[in-house]
């Protein structure tokens, strides 16, 4: 399962450096954070969260590729399960909020602010 390739074999194949994968993952997470900070509509904030989750998944895949094991891929599977549950509950909440307040503007929905 953990087919270890020697460093000579690694240098022979023109593989992507792990740091570049992590850099792309960091960019995706930053874009997701940017979206959550920027948007005031709940459904867009949820979509920005998905972008950030994808960045995290890419970081796990990069680590899995670095070590040549399946563990990172298993964790991406768990991220997908978590994202599915999060989106289902989040969208149900969004629908319920829209029914009650007729808006999805996060600045208007400040009842809990006191």
């Amino acid at each position, binding site marked *: 399962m953990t087919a270890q390739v020697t460093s000579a074999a690694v240098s022979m194949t*023109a593989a992507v450096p792990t740091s570049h994968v992590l850099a792309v993952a960091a960019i995706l997470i930053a874009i997701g954070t940017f979206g959550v900070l920027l948007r005031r509509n709940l459904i867009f904030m949820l979509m920005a969260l998905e972008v950030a989750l994808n960045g995290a998944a890419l970081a796990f895949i990069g680590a899995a590729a670095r070590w040549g094991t399946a563990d990172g891929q298993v964790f991406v599977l768990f991220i997908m399960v978590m994202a599915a549950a999060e989106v289902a509950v989040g969208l149900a909440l969004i629908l319920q909020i829209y029914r009650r307040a007729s808006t999805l503007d996060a600045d208007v929905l400040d009842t809990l602010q006191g």
Partner: protein
Amino acid sequence: MTVLFYASAAVATVASLLAVTRTQALHALLYLVLALFAVALCFLSLGAPFLAALEVIVYAGAIMVLILFVMMMLNLGPESWARERHLLPRHAWLVPAIMASALVLLTLFAVLSAPQQATQAASVGPKAVGVALFSTYLIGVELASVLLLVGLVGAYYLGAKK
């Protein structure tokens, strides 16, 4: 495979950026689907074909369609686009852009200044993933199934008309 990774990483970055900045929800969703396809290609180029397939089937397929259904139920029309544009004035971009670029610059500095290590070209197939999933991480599978059940019941309860 290297070219495929960098090309799809570029597409993923641009599409993600467009997805979080569009004012029309449907356009944003389509860009998000494009970004997910690009990330799936990244997975494929990094030797994770099973996860690439799952990213397309589960993420770009099921989860995005779920969001699409809710968008259809919300009756988003031209007036919602105008409202969305109103929610995104010029000055609102500044602080999130500064914070996100600070985050990305710091992370890039930390990641790129570390010693370079190449990823392994050998791809890890579905069999290895399945073996790891149902041996080492069996407890995780059980917890994930409980999480999905809780999500299902929670979504049903919260989504019901009261």
